[in-house]
């Protein structure tokens, strides 16, 4: 269940940045690969976990 639109990688990053400090923190973690252990340019393999059927919203 996803929107029919592609959020777009670049647009998605900027939408996170647009939130201000909280977003900068998220982008920092993504860039440092602290969560996945991989850099932002190599996150393909980390995709499966976020596709889980978690019915709760965050």
């Amino acid at each position, binding site marked *: *269940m*996803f*929107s*029919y*639109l*592609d*959020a*777009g*990688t*670049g*647009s*998605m*990053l*900027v*939408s*996170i*940045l*647009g*939130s*201000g400090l*909280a*977003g900068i*923190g*998220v*982008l920092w*973690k*993504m860039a440092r690969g*602290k*969560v*996945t252990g991989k850099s*932002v*340019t*190599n*996150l*393909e393999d*980390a*995709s*499966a*976990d*976020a*596709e*889980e*059927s*978690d*019915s*709760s*919203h*965050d």
Partner: protein
Amino acid sequence: MTSIQQDPGSFRDPLSRVFIGDGKVVRAFTEMGAKDIKAVWEKPFIQKSLASGALIESTIVEPSSVGLAAPWTMAMTHPLVPFISYPYEWTFSMLKDAALLQLDVTRGALADGIGVKDATPYNVQFIGSSAQFIDAGSFERRRKGDPWYGYRQFCEMFLYPLMMQGYLGVGFQQFMRGAVNGISPDTMRKLLPASIRRPRKGRMTHVVLHAAAQNRFANSEVNMKSGAAKAGMNASVLDATLKKLTGIVQKLSLGDKKSTWSEYSERGHYIESSLDEKQRFVRDAVASAPRKQVWDIGCNDGVFSRIAAAHADYVVAMDADPLVVDRLYNTLKVEQSKKILPLYVDMSDSGGGIGWRGQERPGIFDRGNPDMVLVLAVIHHLAITFHIPLAAQLDMFRELTPEMVIEMPHADDPMVQKLLVNKRAGIHDDFNLDEFERLLTERFDIKSKMLLSSGTRTIFHVTRKG
């Protein structure tokens, strides 16, 4: 019940389609779409939005009850919007109100665990001066880590057009009409240089960085969504983005507030009695029969639209000056008018459809059937400024409406003289009352006519021949 037809503009979301017929709108969902909508439909945000009217009235029905079968597993009906209008016919204030509604809906939904699939002004319609969210199929269950899918679309179709007008003083309507998907970040970056001296809140992030990021990741196959979710991206981050965008949009204001006609009314040239008798004439004509929809072409400040609205179900008030229409919209909004829809329409450049096969967003003449049209202080502008022959104008009106009130300024009218002042002598000699009346009576029967007290204008109430 099989008389409903698919709306040619409804195809972008593969999970639902809109059908129109039998005096209503039907939105049908595939099995996957139905699953989305059923998961969120009873949530407080949706129910509250339905109750307040922010979201269009929606009744869930069995597809078979409206003549639909597979692949449609769920359907809902909505009332018909009196007149469908598009963002390139809206003024700055209308697009701004639509943007704020889209942001408000997206934020409210987010707080209730609901995702909004897109962020296009085509989700919004105006009932008179009141904006309403009409895309009840936009909602789905939000999943952990979901980004705001509509962010880029919001920028391209709401934020950049508003910035264009607010920061550059350039009307967005021609751009929106020229590109059904709006203005790209890269185009906007080129249009909005750092050197502009006006305020430009939001430019760096939503224009410059947006364009740069799009270019940088144009060929990326990175699953950014997964990475963002793992890095802590959540609903509160999205809400902060939406809140900041709301602040940017709220601060955007109309730049240039003067235009050719916004500080000028042809009525200023009338002697008082001419205006009174013209109003009386229009009132008598409109009130002579029940009217469902009246179009007021060249509405200016809407004085004749208001007269028509007293005797008609709905009035579409059109003018070729967006600032004049913006002023009318804001006045009607204060009055909470739901009977007069103000639109920016240039009759000399209207009518064509746009989008896929030119049918996705039909032209203005394909969206309404006015049972009466008011054409006051218009035809001399079309004839002399835009060189549209009187015969061609009357042919168009004959196709458009069975009944009309039309004002013909004579060749010696001060405004006609003003329009002719720099024209080659003789090229508009056919713009005169006798020729007009000859052309008019070939196409219409005259019910009544009156020479206004000014002595330079005649007004006609006519019905279509045949």
